């Protein structure tokens, strides 16, 4: 059906607006349409696609290593306390005059070791920072690759890259790579977006939802990704809908779905079942099915046309730095 690899990312900025609900519905419907596909959960801080898709066990689990953690060599340490003073995150704890570096806080910057007068601080490299898991066949037929960050470790853009690379390998060539993007802003989101051809942006009609939409949309413009918009819980705030729809019009973002607020959604999440299965005739299920059919049945088969129509004209000029005195260069 697809003659090359097509990457579609579902993104939303901050979490909690219904990204996973949209991704899982779309995945199920795409599978029904017979696409060769792989789903990738890049929301490594809080992966939950596997829960909604009913994955109870994994076929492969590989530890993911990244970064370093500092530790103090007890026999060289003179308990001077300088490391505790300079640590930017307060990771060095003191108990009864002895010092210890909390590995659940330390991010591995070199500040403490550079300042230690006794050179008593070393680094443990290749710390386990997460997991990459594979389920070869979910009950809907397609494979799922899921990344998770080890509790206590900082967020990682590289883990997202590894999850997507692994998923691409499992897909092996042509087909649909469906990515549930990381939430938030920063490296893990940027990494979720690079390489995507299409993006489904999920928002809700609140001031916070709107500013998140603008931010994530700006990022998609950077990567020349063709966006489409899904407004979730659209009936909770009728006035704000105008603002969002106006923005979408001005920015040439097609609105492909409006999902009403529906208690069936949190209820089905609590059960760990997709809402379209648990409550198929509920308003949200019907709307989700409609959106998914539109994307899987109309947009994906003609994705190149969609891209020419909705891809941004040129990359967004965006200078996030302060220029200092450049008289030297």
């Amino acid at each position, binding site marked *: 059906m697809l003659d090359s690899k097509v990457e579609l990312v579902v993104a939303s900025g901050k979490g909690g607006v219904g990204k996973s609900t949209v991704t899982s519905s779309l995945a199920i419907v795409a599978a029904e349409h017979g696409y060769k596909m792989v789903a990738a959960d890049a929301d490594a801080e809080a992966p939950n696609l596997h829960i909604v898709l009913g994955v109870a066990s994994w076929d492969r689990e590989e530890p993911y290593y990244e970064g370093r953690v500092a530790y103090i060599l007890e026999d060289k340490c003179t308990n001077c306390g300088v490391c505790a003073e300079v640590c930017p995150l307060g990771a060095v704890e003191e108990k009864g005059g002895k010092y210890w570096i909390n590995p659940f806080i330390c991010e591995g910057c070199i500040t403490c070791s550079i300042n230690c007068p006794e050179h008593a601080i070393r680094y443990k490299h290749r710390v386990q920072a997460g997991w990459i898991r594979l389920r070869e066949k979910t009950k809907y037929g397609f494979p799922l690759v899921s990344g998770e960050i080890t509790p206590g470790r900082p967020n990682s*853009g590289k883990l997202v890259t590894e999850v997507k690379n692994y998923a691409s390998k499992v897909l092996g060539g042509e087909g649909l790579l469906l990515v549930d993007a990381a939430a938030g802003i920063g490296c893990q989101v*940027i990494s979720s977006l690079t390489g995507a051809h299409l993006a489904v942006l999920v928002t809700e009609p609140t001031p916070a939802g709107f500013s998140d939409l603008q931010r994530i949309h700006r990022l998609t413009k950077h990567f020349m990704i063709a966006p489409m918009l899904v407004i979730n819980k659209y009936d909770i705030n009728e006035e704000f809908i105008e603002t969002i729809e106006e923005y979408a019009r001005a920015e040439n973002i097609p609105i492909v779905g409006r999902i009403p607020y529906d208690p069936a959604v949190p209820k089905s999440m609590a059960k760990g079942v997709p809402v379209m299965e648990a409550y198929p005739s509920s308003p949200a299920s019907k709307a989700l099915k409609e959106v998914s059919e539109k994307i899987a049945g109309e947009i994906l088969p003609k994705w190149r046309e969609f891209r020419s129509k909705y891809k941004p004209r040129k990359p967004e000029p965006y200078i996030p730095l302060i*220029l200092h005195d450049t008289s030297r260069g």
Partner: protein
Amino acid sequence: MAKVKIAFPTEKGGLDDVVYDRLGRTPTFTIVEADTETGEILDVKIVKNPGYEAGSGAGVKAAQVIADAGATVYAGPNPGPNAYAALQYFKVKVIPGYVGLPVREAVKKVLEELRKEEQG
């Protein structure tokens, strides 16, 4: 003879490899030095990208490597906001596109594009 150094993101590297689909965490860059008039390829270098290993800030580290290699043109997938700003600071021209093309072919197209802009 006018020369130009162009940086392409690649996996293994070299003229026969294809342009990779990401910048920040591409494994290598293939730096091609070419004659702008004749299109002759004068030198090819493959450099490792430290951004590949980076937990965060990969795009910026990749931009740094491109600048350190002396490239004045980058061709490949669109850079993210931070990488883009860094490339601008380093005065590296960004020409987006060519993902999946063999580097050898991409070089020809980039030179064409540069010629067009000059005449522009």
